[in-house]
């Protein structure tokens, strides 16, 4: 069915950052420059290792490798198919840019010696999730990433940060235990939890339903799905901005990725349809979309607004899964790309503004666009993409999702997408308008003299901002191509 290639490269891509984080921790005491350099170098090398898999993956092959067995039949295994590759590639790419961004950002902050090793370690564990060969390995890396990113969340060590971190930690444990339950149920029912075995559970039963719900809780928690999103709006804004960008841009996707694997590997489309679980997913998705977007309007802290917006956007991704057809899935995977790029642009831009001015409240940001045109330009591009204005990447993903919804015969979802676009406009446009057209004379504008942040921070933001444009301008771009193939691979186990 699948052409399998045994290769060590995925393990290397996972283990190299984890190993380097120790080196970075050791060197950080000696020299700050060396620490920063090593962090960026690690992220770059990791990205290149992932990119090196491109030709093999595009030819429709699957890379697998087993490191060692922990329990009989359960071990550390990796398996890279096209979907894994999509997520691993976008993650390591954004990680690379954020690592450059972090250098200057962290020079102002305390605890850089803690930040960088953890930052790199998280990269390794996140890639481990995306490239895991079975749910057991996935679970190990999932827990590793969740626990280690706690340190990123509470980095500021303020009272709010610790409170948000505690909430995050408890929710993470609950999610992890739900996953444990789900995985052990699957193991009991199917005798294996490998991703290479095709469908693991083919008959809906009470236990299968329990497993599905537990998976939904475990991965949905991470994905910020309603009603398990409560930790997200607290945890994402309190983290340092580069970490927020990764938390919102990448780490939320681990939940979405897990759900995709559950739908297409533990179960399959016909089982889910037969048991009507797609309806459950659809309802949750609609609530998540509307709730995230609606609450975002009421937030005036810039990063908090972005965090709520993430909840809404994750709703799109869950919706794409609920539709259960190939076109929707293309939109789904493409939206994972889009949202990763958009949200990290937004958070990094917001971080640059906060870093430069110390202002977080939206009402204080009048006229900031004139002072920091590049940063706000990138912010504008990403925000417009969020609203879904052509020709930006957000438009393309919404368009494909809507086509999928129509294919599924559920135009109501299209209405939901439109309403949410309107809401997105309501909370993003005022920021942009005020930033560029609100002068200082209109009340409390930005009175302090500011200029652009340092080039190490601007360049990643600019690259990502341009990415929003490029991935929308050219409908045949690499991300869309990958999404098409990934969707086809999940549905037909073959690439077009």
């Amino acid at each position, binding site marked *: 069915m699948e052409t399998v290639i045994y290769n060590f490269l995925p393990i290397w891509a996972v283990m190299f950052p984890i190993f380097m984080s120790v080196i970075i921790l050791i060197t950080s005491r000696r020299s700050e420059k060396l620490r920063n350099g090593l962090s960026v170098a690690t992220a770059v090398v990791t990205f290149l290792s992932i990119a090196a898999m491109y030709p093999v993956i595009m030819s429709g092959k699957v890379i697998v490798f087993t490191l060692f067995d*922990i329990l009989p039949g359960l071990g550390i295994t990796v398996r890279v198919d096209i979907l894994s590759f999509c997520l691993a590639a976008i993650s390591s790419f954004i990680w690379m840019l954020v690592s450059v961004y972090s250098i200057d950002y962290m020079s102002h902050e305390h605890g850089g010696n803690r930040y960088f090793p953890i930052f790199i370690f998280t990269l390794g564990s996140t890639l481990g999730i995306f490239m895991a060969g079975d749910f057991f390995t996935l*679970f190990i890396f999932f827990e590793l990433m969740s626990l280690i990113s706690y340190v990123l969340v509470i980095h500021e060590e303020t009272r709010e940060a610790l409170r948000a971190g505690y909430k995050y930690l408890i929710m993470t*444990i609950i999610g992890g235990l739900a996953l*444990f339950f789900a995985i052990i149920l699957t193991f009991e029912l199917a005798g294996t939890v490998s991703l290479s075995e095709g469908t693991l559970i083919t008959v809906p039963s009470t236990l299968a339903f329990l497993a599905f719900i537990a998976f939904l809780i475990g991965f949905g928690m991470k994905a910020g799905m309603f009603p398990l999103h409560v930790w997200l709006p607290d945890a994402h804004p309190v983290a340092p901005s580069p970490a927020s960008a990764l938390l919102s841009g990448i780490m939320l996707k681990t939940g979405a990725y897990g759900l995709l694997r559950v739908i297409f590997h533990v179960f399959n489309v016909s089982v889910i349809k037969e048991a009507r679980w797609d309806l459950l997913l659809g309802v949750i998705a609609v609530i998540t979309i509307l709730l995230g977007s609606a609450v975002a309007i009421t937030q005036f802290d810039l990063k908090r607004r972005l965090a709520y917006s993430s909840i809404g956007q994750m709703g799109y991704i869950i919706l794409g899964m609920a539709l259960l057809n190939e076109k929707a899935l293309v939109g789904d995977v493409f939206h994972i790309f889009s949202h990763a790029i958009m949200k990290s642009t937004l958070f990094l831009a917001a971080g640059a503004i906060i870093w430069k001015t110390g202002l977080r409240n939206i009402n204080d940001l009048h006229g900031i666009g004139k002072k920091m045109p590049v940063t706000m330009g990138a912010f504008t591009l990403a925000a417009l993409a969020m609203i879904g204005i052509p020709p930006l990447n957000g438009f393309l993903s919404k368009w494909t999702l809507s086509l999928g919804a129509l294919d599924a015969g559920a135009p109501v979802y299209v209405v939901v997408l439109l309403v949410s676009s309107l809401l997105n406009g309501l909370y993003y446009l005022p920021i942009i308008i005020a930033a560029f057209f609100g002068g200082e004379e209109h009340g409390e504008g930005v009175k302090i003299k500011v200029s652009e942040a340092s080039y190490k921070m601007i360049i990643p933001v600019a690259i990502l901002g341009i990415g929003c444009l490029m991935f929308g301008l050219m409908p045949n771009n690499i991300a869309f191509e990958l999404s098409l193939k990934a969707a086809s691979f999940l549905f037909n186990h073959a690439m077009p």
Partner: protein
Amino acid sequence: MAIHVPVLLIVILLGASYSVPLLDRYRKNLAFPLTIASLSAVFVFSLYLIFLVGRKGPFFYHLGGWPPPWGIELSVDFLAVYMLMVLSSIGLLVMIYGAKDLRHELKKEVLSWYYTLYLLLIGSMMGIALTNDLFNMFVFIEISAIASCGIISIKEDRRCLEASIKYLILSVLGSGCVLLAVAMIYMVTGNLNFVYIAAELPAALALYPFNILIALSLFIVGLGVKSALFPLHVWLPDAHSSAPSPSSAVLSGLVIKIYAFALIKLLFRVFPPQIYAAVPVLDIILFLSVLAVLVGSIFAMVQDDIKRMLAYSSIAQIGYVFMGIGLFGDRALSGGLLHIFNHAMMKSMLFMAAGLIIYATGIRRIKDLKGIGVRMPWTMGAFTVGALSMVGIPGTSGFISKWYLALGALDLGRPFYVAIILLSSLLNGIYYFPIVIDAFFGTKVEPRSEHRDVPALMLVPVLILAAGVVIFGFFPGPLLNLIEKAMTR
């Protein structure tokens, strides 16, 4: 010579135990080296026995050459060598840790007596693990009860004495139950050897059902008291929290488990399986274990003394072992047995880490532990590993035992118990993680003036155990192998 190794284990320990105070009269500084030497020898012999049994299969050793119906028999099988390995490794590490800690916690005059009691305790537990004779088991149970009472009360302050009297009374009650049960069994079968009893019991069950049932329930109550099965746990929090730290480590880590182990041996090797179909003994154990798991954790949450919290956590953790017994399936029992070792590692490590903190700073209150991780990163690092393992994060040994218990529960079609395991894991997280978080992050406290440096000798055992928790979390293969063989015999 090689054939005498099983009895040598006990002889070495008991012999060393009696010679320590004698030696102490002439050479003050020989007591500790002798203790360590004997424990190391026992550790090496235990490993040798694992090797021997693995190669040649289980064998019996007849004490003094007297064959079973008359003489005492030691059964050297996979189950026993597994337990020997647990006892000797943890026992040795705790004693290494105790070298410095005891000098700090105890008066000089009683120091050598501590070694005596400690060796006696380890020796008697080895006896319980090895023996194949009911009355002999009772004798060893008594020795270990007295010895553990001794290592609690040796600190001679008010709380310790109170706790040890409480323990003594309940423990004697337990021993009484066991003795009565032994008598009952002897009455109906006329034998004390496990193998002989197991052969006689099915026939005797038809003739004297009540005697056997009463004996079974007395065993469960007697050993349940000693292993602190809820609701017979009332003595444990006082005893384990007030004792010197090495005592707490060995009491929580090993002593309560050995009685659970004895119960496993009796339930699975001696009593006929049909008895469990007739009366819901196992369901009762299961029910109590669920209560233990939940109530222990809930009590642990409200404690403000760190050692007391760890003690309550032990009550919850022993619940897992009993859950493994109560589920009565292969995989569940494997999980229970595995948890004996895993919890021994985790809990003795946690108690030693707590002891290190108390040694260095004198702080016992959890609230005062803020920022301790910055001052004692290694200690709190080990504590963190222990906490993660308690919650059952994958990559730690606690995960493996939970995995097996949960699989065992599912094998029997009881997902309810999986839910209980998960709920209790969450509770563990709720009381362990805040300690870790407060230790490393948040408020910066001024370093206290009365901060003492921790000797490396005390830190090393803690770190070895922390490493063990992680290593056995990734490579539980050898342990599982041993347990699997122990189950099939």
